[in-house]
């Protein structure tokens, strides 16, 4: 069943990519959606089986893949509560997005290539989450990167899209080198790269100092990989550019699934991270900073997808921060809720973009609630979910992270998280207002054609909105009278090795309910304040006072709109010097120096040969004979 689940999307990709290249859109859409639904059904059955048998982890043996010397990486899968959850997210939300994409790509001439890539992506993502060793995971890891590259650059006629795809692939590969080095280290020190075997090794004994040191490096290197894929500082630059792809792609790959792979991977090897406290500190700090910086950028963006992109970076920062304080379950819980509401927000934005004839600038929108009531309603749910409106999904998951950040990371981390939550509320409400409320600012022609999207597009949104509203109740904290089902669900996946258990005691220790409630109240208060401010400034279109503020804080404003000039910095200090050096190596070192020597030697030989050979026979044969004899003599002198 599990193999079928993986193979359906691959089959769909093959059919669409090779057989149906000229097929009508409806056929290629039907094939892709059919493959996804079949895969989802298999996933659901697999999950039911898993939970039916108590949720015990099991390894499913495939075929021997790579083996050489002492190394072997069989193509085995691991099915446990973590990967079980992930396959539901990937195939479930994946199916909804596939259905939606049929409507979104309506104006394309042919969509078989698009759906082929999209199905292939799901296949790779399933390999990523199911691989039982680092190498199989790495197949999925780079495979989703490939699909991301192909889909970002889907409209390749525009060179900017192709450039964005390439940037995504290359920045990800920087992280991938970290991943690779982590694999080498793991093999060197543990002799295996299988997750289940590693877990057993770590769980069954105490590690010596050398192994502990190695674990420090392994976790750091893996985290570099996670920074690439999950768009953390300093490797986040590819994700905003990735918005060049069609919006369903942004929803599926660059919000709900692929970009969360880093969090998934760290959770998969949580027992190693627990052993490396310094790495954990670095993870928490990077996550917190990423959450904060990305949110500041999102405050001033005017492109609807760019706001959501930076919001994604910021939310991923939350998840990484949760991992960093040891609360992997909170991180994965936020992964789940985020997958629902961010997919909803992106698809909602996609509907808006379609209605607006592919304009994405929010300054030209406004008042769309009148024209698109359904989209507006579901979008509102999404916004409330992400800003942590009490009762919706984001509230529970974000609050869990903030609470763990406070108890595990201290007040500073909590403040960063809470301020970020405030900014999140501000920019999301700003986005909501600029898009759906106030006067419509689009031109006459666009306004005439504004309309609600077809049912194929809004129906998946309704499902996602229901999920965004309800999925949070899986993790109601005990302080609110819940049982935090989710926490208990993931418990068997997490393993704190005995030798470091006191480091992580705070994760289980009982705290004052008053404190938890107080912090919760504070963050909700910040959220309401920030939302209120955004409503006041943007509810009737951007308030005039904003322009004056932008002017009086021109420098700050410019830094934010230009995303801290990070891209420019990388370009000026890394890409260009490297390119110039390469030019130098080729044009000067290769062509002038080495070839100069080679040609020079040739000329000297010709000259010398001409002088030495009175009869000017020019016989290569003779010269080579002399050369050989000379060498033989020389060698004999040395040998004898």
């Amino acid at each position, binding site marked *: 069943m599990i193999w079928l689940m993986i193979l359906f999307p691959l089959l769909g990709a093959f059919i669409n990519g090779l057989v149906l290249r000229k097929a009508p859109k409806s056929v290629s859409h039907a094939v892709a959606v059919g493959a996804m639904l079949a895969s989802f059904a298999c996933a659901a059955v697999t999950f039911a089986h898993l939970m039916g048998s108590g949720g015990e982890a099991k390894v499913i043996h495939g075929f021997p893949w790579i083996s050489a010397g002492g190394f072997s990486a069989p193509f085995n899968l691991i099915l446990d509560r973590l990967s079980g959850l992930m396959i539901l997210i990937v195939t479930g939300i994946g199916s909804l997005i596939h259905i939606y994409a049929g409507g979104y790509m309506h104006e394309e001439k042919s969509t078989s290539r698009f759906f082929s890539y999209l199905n292939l992506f799901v296949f790779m993502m399933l390999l990523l989450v199911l691989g039982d060793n680092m190498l199989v995971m790495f197949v999925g890891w780079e*495979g989703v990167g490939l699909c991301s590259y192909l889909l970002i650059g889907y409209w390749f006629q525009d060179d900017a899209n192709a450039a964005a795809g390439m940037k995504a692939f290359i920045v990800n590969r920087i992280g991938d080198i970290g991943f690779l080095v982590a694999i080498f*280290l793991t093999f060197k020190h543990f002799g295996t790269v299988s997750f289940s075997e590693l877990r057993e090794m770590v769980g069954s004994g105490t590690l010596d100092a050398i192994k502990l040191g190695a674990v420090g490096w392994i976790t750091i290197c893996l985290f570099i990989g996670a920074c690439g894929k999950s768009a953390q500082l300093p490797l986040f630059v590819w994700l905003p550019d990735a918005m060049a792809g069609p919006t369903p792609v942004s929803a599926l790959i660059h919000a709900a699934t692929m970009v969360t792979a880093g969090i998934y991977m760290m959770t998969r090897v949580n027992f190693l991270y627990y052993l490396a406290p310094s790495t954990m500190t670095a993870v928490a700090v990077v996550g917190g900073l990423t959450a904060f910086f990305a949110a500041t950028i999102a405050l001033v963006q005017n492109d609807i997808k760019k706001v959501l992109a930076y919001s994604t970076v910021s939310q991923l920062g939350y998840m990484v921060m949760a991992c960093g304080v040891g609360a992997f379950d909170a991180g994965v819980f936020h992964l789940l809720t985020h997958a629902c509401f961010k997919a909803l927000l992106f698809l909602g934005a996609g509907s808006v973009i379609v209605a607006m004839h592919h304009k994405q600038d929010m300054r030209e929108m406004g008042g769309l609630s009148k024209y698109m009531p359904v989209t507006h309603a579901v979008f509102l749910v999404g916004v409330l979910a992400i800003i942590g409106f009490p009762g919706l999904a984001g509230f529970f998951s974000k609050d869990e992270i903030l609470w763990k950040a406070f108890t595990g990371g201290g007040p500073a981390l909590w403040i960063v998280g809470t301020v970020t939550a405030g900014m999140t509320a501000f920019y999301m409400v700003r986005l909501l207002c600029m898009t759906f409320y106030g006067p419509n600012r689009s031109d006459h022609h666009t306004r005439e054609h504004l309309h609600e999207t077809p049912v194929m597009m809004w129906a998946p949104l309704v499902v996602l909105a229901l999920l965004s509203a309800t999925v949070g109740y899986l993790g109601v904290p005990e302080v609110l009278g819940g049982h935090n089902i989710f926490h208990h669900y993931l418990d068997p996946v997490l393993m704190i090795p005995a030798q470091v258990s006191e480091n992580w005691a705070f994760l289980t220790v009982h705290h004052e309910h008053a404190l938890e409630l107080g912090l919760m109240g504070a963050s909700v208060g910040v959220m309401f304040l920030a939302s209120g401010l955004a409503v006041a400034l943007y509810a009737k279109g951007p308030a005039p006072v904003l322009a004056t503020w932008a002017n009086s804080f021109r420098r700050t404003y410019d830094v934010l709109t230009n995303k801290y000039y990070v891209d420019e910095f990388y370009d000026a200090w890394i890409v260009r010097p490297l390119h110039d050096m390469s030019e130098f190596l080729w044009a000067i070192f290769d062509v002038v120096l080495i070839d100069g020597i080679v040609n020079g030697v040739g000329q000297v030989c010709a000259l010398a040969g001409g002088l030495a050979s009175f009869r000017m026979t020019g016989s290569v044969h003779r010269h080579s004979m002399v050369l050989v004899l000379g060498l*033989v003599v020389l060698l004999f002198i040395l040998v004898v």
Partner: protein
Amino acid sequence: MEFFNSHVLSIMTFLPLMVAAAIFIVPDDKFARVAALGGSILTFFVSLHVWHYFNAGSAKIQFVESYVWMPEFGIRAIFGVDGISLLLVMLTTALTPLVILSLWNSHVSNLRYFFGALLALQTGMLGALVALDLVFFYVFWEVMLIPMYFIIGIWGGARRIYATTKFILYTVVGSLLMLAAAIVLYISYHRQTGIYSTSILDLYNASLDTTTQLWLFGCFALAFAIKVPMWPFHTWLPDAHVEAPTAGSVILAGVLLKMGTYGFLRFAIPMFPLAVKSFAPILVFLGVVGIIYGALTAWVQQDAKKLVAYSSVSHLGFVVVGSVSLLADGSLSVEALTGAIYQMINHGVSTGALFFLVGVIYERRHTRMLADFGGLASVMPWFSVMLIIATLGSVGLPGTGGFVGEFLILLGTYQSSPVAAVMSATGVLLGAIYMLTLCRKLLFGPVTHDENKKMKDLSPLEFSYLVPLALLVIIMGVFPDFFLAKSKASIEHLAKNYRSYSLAIDSH
């Protein structure tokens, strides 16, 4: 059948030469192409026979044939294959029919001589791979040069004479050093044992002192380093590739370069083991420099073919690093060596495909400058699919053979030298940069040149030689064990026992 079984390697080796002779005699291009294709396919089937009956569990030399030639000098013609040479033999016999297919409708002058030269070249390559006698190896090694000299010199581009002369002189300088070293080895062996022998099975047992081994290793290594080519002896390669016709480039990159890395494994390392410890760091250093240098220079090329040529310098750097990664206990890393051997094959497949693809657009537009293209994905979708698959193989995406090779090389190297492995791993990143730059400039963006709007997508003929390579890129990534199973025993034998190496003859 009895005769076939006991002479299968010489039949495989000399069949192409005999077909070449027939082609020279019959003055007809149509006959030439049918004969060339038929002959090369027949050769491939003979090699499949060898593959099929090769005993996977054994590290011995198999299908051995031995003929007395000049007994007074101890020169015998000994042919045999083991797991080290088997994959390269298969690569050679598989690539040659595809190259001949690519010339099926060619309009170059003297086409039949081109076919003849290719087949003669194939005999040279196969001979060098199966010869287990120094004299015969040397003869085949030099025989490879002559057809390639003509292929570049006659059917090449504008600066073909410069390029082909440079190619020959570079190689000959190295070969002569190797010859000199071989003579010293021959005489030393005689002084020790009183026996004249050029059989490398005997010469493996020569016990030379360290100084001699260092000198002889150096001479052999230089010859092989030029052939690979390792940095800084690589400048003949871009020139040779740019001037060579497509078919020549495919063979040159696909098989010829590997003769250098094969030489290290068959000759330099097991014959002069005491020198390995001193030379390994140098070779690893040059390999790492080659990986990075080749990648960086590839990145700034304007000519698609030159870009692919420099990428070979980078890829072969990986092979060199993997061939000499010395562990603390003095043995070679089995993982790295496996990767190196696999990477030779992968490089032959994916770079062969890349040269074919560059040839496809050159034939249509008579230019290879990147600036003359752009947006080909709209006009040539199948071409784009093939180029992207070849690119993925080249950048070593997991799921392609290139990944298996590079990964094993890096994994093994990391156990011996983490610094070298991490430095080499940057090649994985740089590889993506230059290959995706190539794809972007050729395939993506708007179609800016009117001439490109009418470019025809791949013809059935072009499919016929590109599809097998594209399939191989993926199959080799998913089922590496199928290809590597027959080499395992030999690789482990070499890696663990190269210090007291001997090759036994499988007598069945």
